[in-house]
């Protein structure tokens, strides 16, 4: 009996992935850190830690604290800078048969555009993910991801600076994510990443000090999954570009839930910390689900929720 292999490939605009399982920026280092646990060749894409033009030191410690079914982080976008990434990290990633998505940010519109330009010249980088939604930056910066006019401006500038597929990563800390999705799409984004972390705070009642040196941090993990699924679904109904869903995905069932809500691919973040093989287990679980349910093309899950 000939058994047709199920089709796992998905398209994020011009970016073709062999399967919908990606890593979430900042939770998978530059790929190397998990290479002992995960066969990077099997990933749909590796999304690296957020880069800026110049190296950045990030925030003081403590940077991490656990919360119920979640965690707060205030890394503060520590990174080695684009130059060092290209020299020291990219060659490693190029050895693998996977897509490399570079997450990046700037401190001003010009810096965003300049960073995109620098990254676009390099072979081995298949797409850019633009972070306009880190909750650990100062008040002024936050407008990139919360004020649709500013979003439109910065995405437009980056759009002009790069021919690579451009993914815009949206913040959940907004009244209406549909407006933000529209702004990014109108400015030329090829895809949306939904969601970044939700701003939170946790206080040590004995010392009376916040658990994080930065006072507030970004909430990730299963705790935020219902909020993330809702936002993916809202964006799916509003925008006509593909969505990468993320926020609390631990199991294959979670990943499928995001795809049904409208995600064309999923990114696995906090789960890597709990189970360094999480991406592989999720991939296997999606395949198992498809064969159990008789689904031969994973694309048929996208937006499949019946409301």
């Amino acid at each position: 009996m000939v058994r047709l292999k199920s089709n796992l490939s998905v398209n994020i605009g011009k970016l073709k992935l062999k399967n919908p399982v990606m890593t979430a920026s900042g939770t998978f280092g530059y790929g190397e850190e998990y290479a002992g646990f995960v066969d990077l060749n099997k990933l749909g894409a590796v999304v690296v830690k957020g880069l800026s033009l110049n190296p950045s030191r990030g925030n003081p410690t403590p940077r991490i604290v656990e919360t119920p079914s979640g965690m707060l982080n205030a890394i503060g976008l520590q990174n080695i800078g684009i130059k060092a990434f290209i020299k020291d990290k990219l060659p490693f990633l190029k050895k693998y048969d996977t897509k490399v998505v570079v997450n990046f940010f700037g401190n001003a519109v010009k810096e965003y555009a300049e960073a995109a330009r620098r990254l676009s010249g390099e072979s081995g980088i298949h797409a850019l993910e633009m972070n306009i939604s880190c909750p650990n930056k100062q008040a002024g910066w936050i407008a990139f991801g919360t004020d649709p006019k500013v979003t439109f401006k910065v995405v437009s500038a980056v759009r002009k600076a790069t021919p690579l597929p451009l993914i815009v990563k949206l913040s959940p800390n907004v009244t209406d994510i549909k407006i933000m999705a529209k702004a990014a799409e109108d400015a030329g984004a090829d895809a949306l990443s939904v969601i970044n972390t939700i701003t939170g705070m946790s206080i040590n009642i004995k010392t009376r000090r916040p658990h994080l040196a930065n006072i507030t941090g970004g909430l990730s993990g299963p705790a935020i999954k219902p909020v993330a699924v809702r936002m993916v679904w809202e964006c799916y109904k509003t925008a006509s570009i593909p969505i990468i869903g993320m926020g609390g995905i631990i199991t294959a069932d979670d990943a499928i839930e995001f795809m049904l809500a409208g995600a064309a691919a999923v990114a696995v973040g906090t789960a890597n910390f709990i189970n360094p093989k999480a991406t592989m287990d999720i991939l296997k679980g999606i395949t198992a689900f498809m064969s159990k349910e008789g689904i031969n093309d994973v694309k048929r899950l996208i937006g499949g929720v019946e409301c």
Partner: protein
Amino acid sequence: MSKLFLASIKENKEIAGSHYILTLSPLTKTIKPQPGQFFMLSVSNGLDPLLKRPFSIFRVSEKHFQILYRVVGKATEILKNKKAGDVIEALGPLGNGFPRIKPNIKPILIAGGVGVAPLFALAESVKYKKPLFFLGARNKKELLCINELRKIRINPVIATDDGSAGLKGTVVDALSAFLTRHSSLVTRHCIYACGPKAMLRELSFLAGKFNIEAYGAFEENMACGVGACLGCMVNTKDGLRSVCKEGPVFPLGEILW
């Protein structure tokens, strides 16, 4: 290489108020840990607690390994109720461990509180060198492993904050007194330490003053344990370094306090 594996609990024994020794039997072949390395342990299969927790290797034998832990919060509260036969998930061994001790060097081991865990592992592996051991705690009740140390013929110098056992004062005060008395010999010594950050800080100044090489095992809140999340950085002369991957052991002289 570190590994993700299941281990079954052989024993989980209270050794002092709120302090336990957990003996684990890995269910698959694992890598033998070195003193100063650590494991990340899951205490639940559910989503709360969510993250694995780091614990230093306390003792290694052919088939088992042990950790010594203090009950301080959510995960350790759950851990203390685990029973023989329960299975937990572990990741490790992680981190660099203490550097090999050079020939002709006399190790001085100094531990504050539950920081004794990795130093006991080190003491066992270098007991032929007859290391000096300085052991500190808040009070007599919280002094750990004195009997275990004596069994490997190490008679620790003791200090307690309240003077309820040994010298009154910090364990660094005790070491300081010792070094002052034996200052001619110090260049043949090397210090290995684990304890609260404030203790390591004091110690680094002391070691600097006497110009002795000194290494400390650090702690920071961790999420990944493998250098990926950048959660656990310490500030060194070489820039930020991850405690989980580039540490937890750093030369104290390299730390920017």
